[in-house]
């Protein structure tokens, strides 16, 4: 363990220093003063803003370099003259419910409209479903948690204890996607609630041409990015597998092992009926002895023998029946 810790720290320092060293050797520009007028009344917001990349004046694209608070909130001259107040003097709150989702997003897209990550925003479901940037992102994050892309800080999330301290994406996404929230907590799930995978590892929340805004052209292409061992090419293919992983699996979670939609042998028997064992009914008395000890039912059922169900390069009947 000690060696592992030292190795990890060493690697971390190495990677950090590498990045710092390679990209820190350019002369810095002097930082201009901040949005002091606004700070007089809105100190916590301005302080939080200044700590983000939005507040970096040296960034030529940042609000700080493009009018500071006014870049998003509009010209505050009249607002200041009037002594402040919600909406007074034409001041604009980009998170206000009085604005439509498109209007709210439009404020962000004033600067981010040319981002490659947002190129397909208009084609995506989120925009069509009245989701705006501020539903997921917060521009003034008052938090000591690690928050990438300035994700909103979610409510306390009822999940099992986890070993991560980061704000996790699923906490934001499942605010709306309640069915997914239920699925990712099921006994068989991808390590999303543990913080090892993010929703955005598979989906592009900013829009995509693909169904469900997955990052690849099809579900299978997406799954193969991590599960390359399933991609083949195989001499003996299992056609439903080649067409769609979701025929048998639920990628978000399931009560059945291996994220299966239904338990084996029932799942297999929904397609396979023939003489002998594919069409045989396996009852509750066919488990381990003192049951009948039927090897097509007990333990992992069909895959006790037909393990290579995603495809195989074994010859002849061994391959055809996915046995080797």
């Amino acid at each position, binding site marked *: *363990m000690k060696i592992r810790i030292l190795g*990890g*720290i060493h690697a971390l320092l190495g*990677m950090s*220093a590498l990045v*710092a*060293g*390679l*990209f*820190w050797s350019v002369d*810095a520009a002097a930082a201009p003063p901040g949005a002091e007028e606004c700070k007089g009344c809105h100190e916590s917001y301005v302080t939080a803003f200044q700590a983000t*990349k939005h507040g970096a004046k040296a960034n030529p*694209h940042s609000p700080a370099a493009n009018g500071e608070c006014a870049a998003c909130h509009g010209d505050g001259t009249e607002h200041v003259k009037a002594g402040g107040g919600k909406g007074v003097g034409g001041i604009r709150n980009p998170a206000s419910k009085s604005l439509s989702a498109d209007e709210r997003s439009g404020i962000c897209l004033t600067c981010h409209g040319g981002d*490659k990550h947002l190129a397909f925003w*208009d084609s995506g479901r989120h925009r069509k479903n*009245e989701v705006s940037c501020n539903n997921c992102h917060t521009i003034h994050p008052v938090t000591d948690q*690690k928050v990438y892309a300035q994700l909103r*800080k979610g409510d*306390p*999330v*009822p999940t099992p*204890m986890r*070993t991560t301290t980061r704000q996790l994406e699923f906490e934001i996404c499942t605010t709306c996607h*309640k*069915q997914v*929230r239920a699925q990712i*907590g*099921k*006994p068989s799930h991808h*390590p999303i609630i*543990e913080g090892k995978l993010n929703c955005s590892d598979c989906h592009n929340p900013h829009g995509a041409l693909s169904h469900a805004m997955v990052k690849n*052209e*099809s579900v299978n292409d997406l799954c193969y990015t991590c599960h*390359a061992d399933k*991609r083949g*090419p*195989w001499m003996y293919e299992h056609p439903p597998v*080649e067409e*769609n992983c979701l025929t048998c699996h639920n990628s978000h979670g399931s*009560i059945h092992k291996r994220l299966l939609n239904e*338990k084996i042998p029932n799942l297999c*028997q*929904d397609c*396979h*009926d023939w003489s*002998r*064992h594919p069409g045989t*009914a396996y*009852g*509750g008395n066919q488990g*381990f002895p003192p049951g009948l000890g039927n*090897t097509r039912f*007990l333990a992992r059922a069909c895959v*006790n023998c037909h*393990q*290579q169900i995603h495809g195989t390069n*074994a*010859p*002849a009947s061994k391959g055809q029946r996915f*046995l080797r």
Partner: protein
Amino acid sequence: MKAKTLAVAVASLFAATAMAQEAVTVNGSVSVGGITSDTTDTKDEFKLQEYRDLKDGGIADVNVEIRGARQWLDIFGENIGRRDQYMDIRGGYYGLFRGRLYLNDIIHNEGFNLITPYSGVGTNALRAPVTGTGANGTFNTNVGTWNPFNLGIDRRHLGASADVRPASSPFYVSVEATEQKREGVRIQGAANGTSPGNGFQELPIPIDYVTRVVAGEAGYSSRDMHFALNVSKSKFTNDNERVTWTNPYFGGGVDTSTYSPSSDQTKWSLNGLFKRLPWDSQLAGRFTHTKLTDDVPLLAGVFNTGNTSTILPTPANVTNFSGENVWTTGSLALTSRPTRVIDTKFYYNYYKKENKSSEVVFTGQPTDSCGAGSGTICEPDRFDYTKKNWGAELWYRFAGHTKAIAGFDYVDLDRNRVDFDNTKDKKGYLELRTDAWETAAIRVRYQRLQRRSHFLEGEAGDNANDPEFINRFVRRFDASNVDQDLLKIAVDASIMPLLDVGAEAYFKHNKYKDTILGRTKDDRQELYVSAAYGDVQAWRINAFADAEYIRYDSTHRTINGGTCTAAAPNCFDPIGGTQSAFSFNWDGKVKERNYAAGIAGDWMVGPRIKLNAAYTYQKTEGTVDFSFPGLTGLTPLVNIPNVDDVKIHTFSLKAVYKATPAIDLTGGYAYEKYEFKDSAWDNYANVVTGGTPNQRSYLTGAYAFPDYKANILYVMVTYRFH
């Protein structure tokens, strides 16, 4: 290690020089602590530690933000040194460059202290001594002397990426390199014999996978248009494409199983987007071309069924299988807003998979037939398919924040499958959503899907005594005719200050209307409710409750013995054939009932103490009920009372005490209990007897004992610096 040390030294030199030139602010924190867990009375704690490293030991986290006038660097490390460590370093130069390095270690524990009669676990040669000959051949059944091993995979995902885009330039270049390495042991089943009923083995096979991907993208992105050309190369390597193992059924001879082939993939993609067209339109398109190849020497022989160690050759027309799959895809989408109240979207997607792999022909051996009869020639099908999908959507905005959405989606899928060669899906939907009320938003969606397929096996088999005849009646649910109704209702409301509630309900019904044998219908009824109450600055509570009812109905036909008899003729006909103990139809009804609830809270007890607590409960219940319509006198099959039944309780409590402005003390406790019951796993045994000793199955204990009870404690000290 030398290379790593050198990298640190060189990089540190750069960093030190650079930082000396400018004012830099450094903020962040470093945390150290320890964790311990108690799992007394737990046989196998793999489910507790499935994705979490909770072994006793130290914890270290780091979180640093460095800001220069024009550069930034974020360093984050979590669980450093543990099996589930995560590190993420992002940096950049404003207006020019952004880069990232990351390491994500993902564990997937699936069993601790499992046992196997095989030696050589972790290698691709699994061996076990066999005593007795022929039908009396057997492994050592004294499980106390078997070899222990841990089951699971350690995955290390390393990546680096860089984006270069000069300020005010619409052109950009991105590069990315990743490596995913998986190491460990996985259970793979293997049938002892070549025909069913001869037992099986659980093989603890070695996993040594590496997937390396290099990708580059060059593009142009502005507010008016976007173009990008992306090229990626992916190489997957499996060090154990074959594993040899002692097969007790075949006299202790060495058998061979084949596993995932190493492969290479090249992908090109071109995407583009025109914005600000007439009617506020956008035209988006994407084209991709992917080629995946492998080259695998074919196994020269297989075991026979003569219960000897003889290996029979499997004559094929080629010595190697050269796999080549090619995918070509295209997408086009036009979104418009012709008026202030109307949005439209028209889209077309094309997806084609071509299988250009070797045409392999095996001239079957009498004892290794590929088809129903013996001595047949078998030729693997090369599966191709082409999918064309188009659709249209219309959004209409009524006054007062109300919107109606209507859509139609059509899929035409051609495939070279033996049962269905064409499928046409027509999907229509209507959705109404409103947030006309200040405090509530409601969404109702109804969707109707109709799938019609071209069935090829209507004339299968010569007559009802031919086993192929039954294929006339089997409709596989993934491609069969189906009528689907889906209703989704969602409500989100702020019913009083600080209280938000939400609910989602799904009702889904699939009717596989022409299916005689196979899944005939399935239903889902799901309800998800959540509520959040509280003030961010003081205390908050978030809770949820879920209920799901799922049902699958199916009809099947049992034909014992494999051939019809004079007493039970036409046994492969589920409609006109006899209903007897020899051959009969049966119905299965799979029912699942899942419930879950949870509550979590944050409480700022005082200016220095913050508490967080969470409790979750989950219960799943599954059953399978059988019935035998029209059949009398048969001993009823025993219904399956427990299908993946699980009860989970989890509780966690965490307290953070701000001892000084710079130091936080964190303490946490968690309790978890997991109970599992399933009729297929009850009375689990490592040796399952067969008709003869050489038909015994030898199991490792994998997945058999997921129950656990755990108490977990951890403490951390966090030092913050500014």
